[in-house]
């Protein structure tokens, strides 16, 4: 098993506003997925709906079967929560606990526990009491307990956000290892783009209870379907400029860019649009170049790792953009020339949806 479909899912906690609205998503077998969005976007609600902890309008299908009357314990899933849940007993007993009613011999159970503890490097602490462990170790135990029964689906709800930052990487390494060793469907809820891009292949970006884009991580990054996605993914997020089609060109008050033939028809009709371009895609030159746009460098922020953010203003201060890169020869106050690479520029309508014609 493990293909999960959500059809027209809507849920409201208070009967007035919808926590999630009209969600349609398909998670296929053994895929790695993330639900990514800011707090309050509905991602945890959606996970609870999949788990069977909330009953929504619409349909939840597991392998084509409606799940309306299937309670949590009968769905082939395991869950890991933001705050690690461990029982006040040894780590070994914690891992053994979900197997207590399984029809397996004692020896088989023990082998399974040892297999999982090897995978998660829990062997050195197997005899320690789980409730005495720090957050990172407790969460590792909780992960192990979720894995032990071999459920086909693993739901993870912000499993790292209560862990000390310096230990998160260790846990990410373990989660990645689980993904490689245990064939499962993973659905990972997070507000952190790094976790989504690192631990999944396909991402649903959510905001205000809706899914804005459901795509491979490469597309989410390179072709945000929506300005919110472009802003939310990336630090800094996408540059967004207000433009208007004037005399056949893309006009931004104090500079213009050549028209995009493919979109000419749409723009002739609607005139106004928004242009999005990622700060890391902009080319910066200290020398004047043909068709590059003059800007001045207002401020520089050192990011470390050899990277800087340039805060740039157009000639008459009508447009502000950021560029991300090495730029070792640029100083504050410099005049620079910027190229907006044609294949990296995206055009959006007034509401922020990408125009795809």
């Amino acid at each position, binding site marked *: 098993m493990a293909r999960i479909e959500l059809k027209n899912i809507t849920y409201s906690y208070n009967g007035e506003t919808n926590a999630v609205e009209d969600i349609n998503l398909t998670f296929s077998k053994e895929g790695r997925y993330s639900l990514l969005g*800011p*707090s309050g976007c509905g991602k945890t609600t959606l996970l609870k709906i999949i788990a069977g902890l909330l009953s929504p309008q619409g349909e939840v299908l597991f392998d084509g079967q409606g799940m309306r009357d299937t309670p949590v314990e009968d769905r082939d899933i395991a869950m890991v929560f933001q705050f690690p849940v461990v029982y006040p007993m040894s780590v070994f007993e914690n891992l053994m606990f979900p197997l207590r009613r399984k029809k397996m011999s004692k020896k088989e159970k023990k082998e399974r526990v040892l297999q999982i503890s090897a995978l998660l490097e829990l062997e050195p602490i197997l005899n320690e009491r789980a409730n005495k462990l720090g957050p990172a170790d407790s969460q590792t135990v909780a992960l192990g307990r979720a894995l032990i029964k071999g459920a086909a689906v693993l739901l993870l709800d912000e499993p790292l956000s209560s862990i*000390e*930052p*310096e230990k998160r*990487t260790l846990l*990410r*390494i373990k989660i*990645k290892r689980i993904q490689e060793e245990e064939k499962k469907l993973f659905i990972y809820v997070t*507000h*952190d*783009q*790094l976790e989504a*891009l*690192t631990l999944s292949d396909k991402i649903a970006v959510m905001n205000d209870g809706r899914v804005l884009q459901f795509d491979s*991580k490469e597309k989410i*990054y390179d072709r945000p379907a929506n300005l919110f996605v472009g*802003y*939310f*993914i*990336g*630090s*800094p*997020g996408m540059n967004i400029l207000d433009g208007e089609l004037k005399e056949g060109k893309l006009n931004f008050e104090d500079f213009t860019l050549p028209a995009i033939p493919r979109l000419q028809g749409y723009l002739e009709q609607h005139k106004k649009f928004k242009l999005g371009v*990622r700060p*890391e895609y902009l080319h910066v030159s200290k020398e004047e170049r043909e068709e590059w746009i003059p800007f001045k460098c207002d401020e520089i*922020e*050192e*990011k*470390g*790792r*050899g*990277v800087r953010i340039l805060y740039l203003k157009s000639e008459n201060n009508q447009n502000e953009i950021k560029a*991300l*890169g*090495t730029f070792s020869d640029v100083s504050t106050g410099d005049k620079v020339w910027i190229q907006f690479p044609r294949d990296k520029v995206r055009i959006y309508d007034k509401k922020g949806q990408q125009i795809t014609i």
Partner: protein
Amino acid sequence: MEILRLEGIERKVLRKKILQDISIEVKEQSFTAILGPVGAGKTTLFKIIAGSIKPSKGKIYLRGKDITNLPPQKRRVAMVFQAFSLYPNLTVYENMASPLRAARRGESEIREKVETQAEILRMGSLLDKHPYELSGGEGQRVAIGRALVKEADVYLFDEPLTNLDYKLRESMSRELKDILTAEGFEGTILYATPNCEEALSMSTETILLQEGKVIWGGPTLESYLMPPCIAFAKNFSSPPMNLFECRLTREGNELYLYASKEIKLNVTHLKGLLHENGYILGLQPHVLYTEKKGPEMMPITVNLTLAEITPSGTMLYLEHEGKRATGFLQFPQDFKEKSLQFFVYSQDFFIFSKQSGELIMKYRSVHNGKN
């Protein structure tokens, strides 16, 4: 001109030394980052400066005056906490006014100061709201506003951005920097953070605090470019700087710093500078390249443990000959292969003394030396 000086500050709780022998000087109107991991003693240090706890030993001077025994309300020091503690029953206006009321200022002065500060922080529309009606970012902005309303010589910010999500942190860090470096703002800032990126992008000076001790202090950007010691190099880079133990070896007439078959630097021309047996080679994660850009580049073969991907770069957790290493690429990239080869320039290596941990020099090859 120094404004704040700590001399031999120590803080003991039971028998444990939370802080020991802290002696620092802070320049007037500087922006000093106190960089340190969780548990380094940053918050304790701030509480001692603010006066809410007493040091077991040592003296604190503000503008040359000993304030060690002065109560908090008599010190010209303001503090913003990590978990912003606003009074839930008071409006934003009253929250911001509270330090001025405590100082028994007149109503018209309070109104003017609160409104001016709210204007600067662009939160004029929030003044009548209660804390529960605010988002996380707005709440933190109010807490910052409340600290800035209090006229102080020194403002202490204790990880003000740590509890915010990354999108908010991005805009708030710039906003905070703009406010605190704006013309007309005359306060001195001490800013505690575990995050070296924040220290690097905001501060002019950095003090590294570890296990209750000052490891190093100095100008931020220079120290980043030329890390003065191993402890600083480790903490002032995310992911941390690669450190390879190496020894001095002789092959015929040539002298090498040898860390592994691939990491090996010819130091024959530097022999006058190297008198110890053991050294540590440091290499910033971002100078590992995926392609060979020139014949002089050295290959490094690694196993990939994890690639952490963000749009602004990929952190690579690696193993080189059984030892941990890290890499950073300035673009998002996922790897299918586990065994990878990277390339580095020899002049990107730092040579540290193994014994003292201090930087000896940045490596230069014979060719560079001649230039």
